[in-house]
């Protein structure tokens, strides 16, 4: 950390992004205008599973204002089918062939069947309505267990069964070693004092950002394809579109709008719709624009979780955890979704199942089934929302059998020494879990709460306290990212100094509200000793930014910021070398120059200094009399890859009161304890935590995608897919117990992606604690008053 001074990192600094957003001058995708842009509207399937007998587009095509109508048959020989290598993981799975529009049959209610391009969006909607599709219904495959059963209807007709992916995470690659491992685990279970065996199910729910998806593409024979796309990973989209449409990659430019209305994972896949928009723009030679409706969004994407776990835990009577066994099943939907294919979430969920507990051994297997639903698409707490719910509930249930406070059980079994390799080979690089936990317990005042709880119970009121904790990936190292998504994990940043002493930073990832413009400006300002307002950040344009795998997996605070700082250090070295040369200073290294308060100062004689602007201007504008071998100009791209994969850690406590007459409950308090390493912007960190926890609460209590017995999606609007309002959630208190990360230049850790994962367990633990007199254990989600009431009724009836 040579040459950096205290200052901007860790300081309250109001976001640079905000002014345009609070004055209505943000530029989201739907705000971008291109002269003559046409509008596309999709006709989507009314059936969950059916053969397409015919599509009559004649009425639609004849409408005034309609430019084109296309069906799957029109495009299947024009666009290469998916999968394509750049969006296909290097994991052994079966990858379903598909095009942007259904060909031959439909596999879920809402699948795109045809599309209308018209001069006016209202007309496009009229024309889409006028398309007549004749279907011959097929049996609906609606749940993963029956999809996996013998004799099940096969969704992808050229497959032998409905299994897209299965994996043994603990037993090795071959069957022999797996059998031997299973037997070893069984031995532990056979001799354990306590064995918990429980099924946990998590419903289908997701993220639903306030801005839906959208795309605007234009084609020009000389420049090629330019597309503005709601996306978290423009560079991957660019490569994938180039492959699918067979346009040379240098002729494809993808721009993620500077303002995106949230992503949370759902804007990370390579989806079907943008392929078609791009294709139509090229075919028609006119700009084509698509703004997804909320109904489309809730039918087609934002659906995650949806896993079942048959979990077993072996423990000693003193509360020491001995072994875990899990057989997970996930409902993938049709799996037709580039990058993720609906199964990467359950894959990572299984990897994360052990959480921060020190398991001696485990046996974890997962199977992912194709069904007639939309493919799972990523949601913050990627895959691990269900597994962490299962784990955090299981810990409480085991603690009860041991006669222990669940809090004590957690502390006893936390990984105490880092680094640590989990039983699923997840590397925990650094931090101090016990410190975070003890900080939480100081906030929680458990003895005080137990006293209040006892008093309340005497009055017939039911208070409860619940705990949970979670390890979160802090960026995804190439070590994991290459096999998982066939993409690099490094963070990339280009730092360009301006002759006027200002800094331009270019980021290939594409944020959607996380505050990258501010966070990186603070890091860069600290590095150069200037003001964050002198730093301008450009994101998400493949034409101007270095390659990045996208804004996914909490990469910014760990990988992207680190790359930017590395690039700054590189440029400071160069400035230092040239300054030493100019001043004819002997025995001087670049480290002898401090960048602070707008000056570059020689540390051995602080009278020798230049303003930052002078120092920079000299290298860029006056590249004469340079040291031998040195060139002019100040711009550098750094690719940061940490030595090891990194994590962040948190623990939560909440208190509740349950009304046993109705099963309704109120969350009285929520406190979290965090290790996010060195904080760069405290408000942004706090906002990430509060937002993530409330998303977790909303997922747990309100949101659920419901399909009826014929696979009709019943929850494709905000009246039926309920999100938490401000009046439904508590204030969230955020506290810190940081340990700087030794593997990043600032000690920062990326945070926020995995953060909702321990919320359902924490909340349900509190509810079960409140209802301890009734012996109620919650093992399935969502957590709704009616089901809770039913459990209370049953328990009261039984007693």
């Amino acid at each position, binding site marked *: 950390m040579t040459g950096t001074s205290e200052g901007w990192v860790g300081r309250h600094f109001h976001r640079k992004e905000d002014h345009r957003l609070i*004055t*209505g*001058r943000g530029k989201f995708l739907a705000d971008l205008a291109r002269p003559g842009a046409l509008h596309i509207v999709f006709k989507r399937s009314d059936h969950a599973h059916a053969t397409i007998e015919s599509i009559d587009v004649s009425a639609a095509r004849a409408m005034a204002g309609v430019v084109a109508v296309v069906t799957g048959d029109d495009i299947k020989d024009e666009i290469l089918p998916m999968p394509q290598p750049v969006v296909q993981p290097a994991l052994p799975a079966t990858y379903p062939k598909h095009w942007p529009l259904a060909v031959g049959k439909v596999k879920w209610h809402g699948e795109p069947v045809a599309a209308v391009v018209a001069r006016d969006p209202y007309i496009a909607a009229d024309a889409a309505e006028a398309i007549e599709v004749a279907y011959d219904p097929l049996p609906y495959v609606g749940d993963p267990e029956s999809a996996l059963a013998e004799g099940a209807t096969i969704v992808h007709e050229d497959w032998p069964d409905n299994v897209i992916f299965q994996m043994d995470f603990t037993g090795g690659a071959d069957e022999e070693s797996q059998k031997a491992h299973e037997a070893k685990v069984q031995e532990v279970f056979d001799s354990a004092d306590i064995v918990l065996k429980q099924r946990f199910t998590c419903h289908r729910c997701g993220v639903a950002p306030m801005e839906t998806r959208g795309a605007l593409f234009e084609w020009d024979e000389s420049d090629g394809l330019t597309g503005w796309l709601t996306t978290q990973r423009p560079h991957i989209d660019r490569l994938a579109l180039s492959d699918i449409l067979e346009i040379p990659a240098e002729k494809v430019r993808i721009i993620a709008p500077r303002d995106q209305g949230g992503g949370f994972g759902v804007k990370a896949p390579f989806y079907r719709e943008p392929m078609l928009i791009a294709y139509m723009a090229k075919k028609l030679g006119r700009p084509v624009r698509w703004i997804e409706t*909320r*109904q489309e969004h809730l039918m087609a994407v934002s659906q995650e979780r949806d896993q079942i776990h048959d979990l077993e835990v072996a423990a000693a009577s003193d509360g020491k955890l001995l072994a875990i066994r899990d057989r997970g099943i996930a409902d993938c939907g049709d799996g037709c979704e580039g990058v993720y294919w609906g199964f990467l979430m359950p894959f990572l969920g299984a990897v994360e199942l052990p959480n921060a507990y020190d398991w001696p051994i485990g046996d974890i297997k997962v199977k992912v089934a194709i069904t007639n639903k939309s493919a799972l698409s990523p949601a913050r707490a990627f895959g691990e929302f269900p597994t962490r719910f299962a784990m955090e509930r299981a810990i409480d249930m085991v603690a009860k059998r041991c006669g222990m406070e669940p809090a004590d059980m957690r502390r006893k079994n936390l990984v105490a020494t880092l680094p640590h390799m989990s039983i699923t080979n997840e590397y925990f690089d650094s931090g101090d879990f016990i410190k975070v936990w003890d900080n939480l317990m100081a906030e929680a005042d458990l003895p005080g709460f137990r006293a209040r709880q006892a008093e309340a119970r005497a009055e017939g009121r039911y208070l409860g306290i619940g705990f949970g904790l979670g390890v979160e990936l802090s960026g995804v190292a190439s070590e994991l990212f290459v096999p998982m998504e066939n993409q690099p994990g490094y963070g990339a940043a280009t730092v360009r100094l301006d002759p006027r002493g200002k800094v331009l930073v270019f980021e290939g990832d594409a944020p959607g509200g996380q505050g990258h413009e501010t966070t990186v400006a603070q890091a860069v300002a600290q590095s150069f000793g200037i003001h964050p307002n002198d730093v301008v950040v450009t994101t998400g344009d493949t034409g101007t930014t270095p390659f990045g795998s996208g804004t996914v997996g909490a990469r910014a605070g760990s990988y992207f910021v680190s790359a930017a700082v590395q690039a700054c250090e590189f440029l400071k070295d160069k400035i230092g070398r040239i300054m030493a040369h100019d001043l004819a200073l002997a025995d001087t290294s670049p480290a002898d120059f401090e960048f602070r308060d707008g000056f570059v100062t020689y540390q051995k004689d602080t009278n020798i200094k230049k303003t930052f602007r002078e120092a920079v201007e000299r290298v860029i504008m006056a590249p004469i009399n340079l040291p031998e071998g040195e060139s002019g100009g100040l711009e550098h791209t750094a690719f940061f890859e940490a030595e090891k994969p990194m994590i962040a850690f948190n623990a939560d406590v909440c208190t509740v009161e349950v009304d046993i007459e109705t099963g309704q409950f109120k969350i009285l308090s929520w406190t979290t304890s965090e290790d996010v390493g060195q904080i760069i912007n405290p408000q942004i960190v706090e906002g990430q935590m509060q937002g993530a926890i409330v998303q977790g609460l909303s997922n747990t209590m309100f949101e659920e995608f419901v399909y009826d017995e014929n696979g009709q999606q019943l929850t494709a609007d905000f009246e039926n897919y309920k999100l938490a309002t*401000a*009046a439904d959630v508590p204030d969230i208190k955020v506290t810190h117990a940081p340990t700087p990360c030794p593997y990043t230049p600032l000690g920062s850790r990326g945070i926020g992606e995995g953060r909702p994962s321990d919320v359902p367990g924490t909340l349900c633990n509190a509810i079960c604690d409140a209802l301890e007199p009734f012996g109620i254990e919650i093992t399935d989600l969502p957590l709704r008053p009616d089901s809770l009431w039913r459990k209370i009724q049953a328990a009261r009836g039984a007693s």
Partner: protein
Amino acid sequence: MSTTTITVTINGEVFEETVPVRMLLVDFIRERAALTGTHIGCTYEGVCGACTVQIDGEAVKSCLMVAAQADGHEITTVEGLAQGGELSPLQRAFNEQHALQCGYCTPGILMNMDEFLRENPDPTDEEIRHGLVGNLCRCTGYAHIVDAVRQAAKETR
């Protein structure tokens, strides 16, 4: 397509436009007046509140009206909140309290809370949260929004 001619004042500026009868007010504001700070987050349900504007000073959802219904009325959008280049206390509080992340829901929240504070100059946190029911935010968890509205109330009183 059947049209009608309407006169609407938006942020003090008069628009006389011939529009399709079915054109939604939110589309009129975004496409005809080119004021794209007013956002759309629902299909037909009118639940999210991102399109909230003020009509004659009252916060309403511009996606649940056709433009013709606004004929003869005065509309204020988020672009009209700052006066003479000065942010309103509410806007400033949103920046200072980090009450927005992606900012997509923010214009609707500002337009609702701007009226709310005129009606409730000294609200409790519970009243603020209840006042926010018609605006969904997916990023912040609402806590900083409540902080910002409370700050603006304090500064305005």
